[in-house]
């Protein structure tokens, strides 16, 4: 069997499962039915049962990952659209992101050492609180693995969604600026979706925080790697 049809089959299966999962999740909005949980779970099960190596799966499916680059360019649109919001809240947003990202990297490294995780995991975990396309760019710079970082980003988003709602139920944080920043810095896109559901302004702040955090992390990653 030639390799091209097999690669195209896996790409097509990914697309079909994605569309099906979106429809299903639209009707039954349960976290486990979300495309980012359900589709990989089904695909991994199939690949393991059929003993298909990852390289065979990724032969054509890598075209999907290639679109993560252009997706970062798309972030320029919300930045341009909400440039007034950024200008007005420039100081709190940038201060929050700088503190948040520093705490993110330092606490991840400390907790990883506490739990005795190998250095490769520690490094890949350290960029996990930013959006996937940024994490994939930052991970190799800090000596981590892009794929591992991507998985940790997804887990972070899900954990952060639950954690954020719970923290905000008792934390004395009243401005939607701080609430939105909490979701954007802690749980990137998943947090932003949660913030949007709670309040439109919170959602906008969350997405801006997420983008600024991603850009800052990618720029600072080489220095952070040398420092921790």
């Amino acid at each position, binding site marked *: 069997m030639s390799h091209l049809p097999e690669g195209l089959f896996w790409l097509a299966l990914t697309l079909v499962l994605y569309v099906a999962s979106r429809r299903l999740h639209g009707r039954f909005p349960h976290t486990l039915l979300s495309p980012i949980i359900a589709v990989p779970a089904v695909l991994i099960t199939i690949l393991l049962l059929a003993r298909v190596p990852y390289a065979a799966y990724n032969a054509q499916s890598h075209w999907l990952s290639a*679109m*993560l680059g252009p997706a970062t360019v798309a972030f320029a649109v919300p930045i341009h659209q909400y440039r007034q919001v950024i200008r007005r809240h420039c100081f709190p947003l940038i201060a929050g992101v700088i503190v948040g990202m520093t705490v993110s990297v330092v606490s991840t490294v400390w907790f990883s050492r506490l739990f005795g*995780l190998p250095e490769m995991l520690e490094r890949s*975990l350290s960029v996990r609180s930013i959006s996937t396309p940024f994490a994939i760019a930052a991970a190799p710079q800090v000596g981590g693995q892009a*794929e591992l970082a991507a998985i940790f980003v997804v*887990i972070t988003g899900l954990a952060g969604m639950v954690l954020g709602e719970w923290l905000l139920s008792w934390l004395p944080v009243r401005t939607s600026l701080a609430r939105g920043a909490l979701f954007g810095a802690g749980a990137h896109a998943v947090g932003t979706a949660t913030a949007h559901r709670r309040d439109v302004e919170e959602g906008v702040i969350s997405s801006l925080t997420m983008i600024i955090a991603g850009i800052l992390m990618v720029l600072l990653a080489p220095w952070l790697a040398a420092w921790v």
Partner: protein
Amino acid sequence: MRALTARLRPWLRVLVQIGLIVLIWLAAVEISARFLPGIPPTVSGIAIALALMALGLLRREWVEDGAAWLLREMLLFFIPVVIAVLQYRSLLAGRFLAILCVIVASTACVMLATAFTVDLAWKLEKRWRARRETQA
């Protein structure tokens, strides 16, 4: 036939806009590789798009729908990356609980630190502004 083209038009517009965004990305990859060694295309791409919009060479409406589509469907693009977990089975085996603990603990730290910093910075800025106004 006309009904069909009318239905296809919004899709075509999204497709063309995505093409434009991909071109900006490819330009960013080239520019970063040749002229900006410290700045990855992830950042230079955003900077180029913003610069083009600021200069009036690129109107937001030209890329808005394509960008919205890319951001909305971003989950699709990282499915293959998540599946790569298959390659790291031995590294992850038996460590999943520890990894989850690190992620939850650190995410809580990030959220608390960010929210309190933003709150504090917002209050400080408000106080500075009030002081400046009373002085003026």
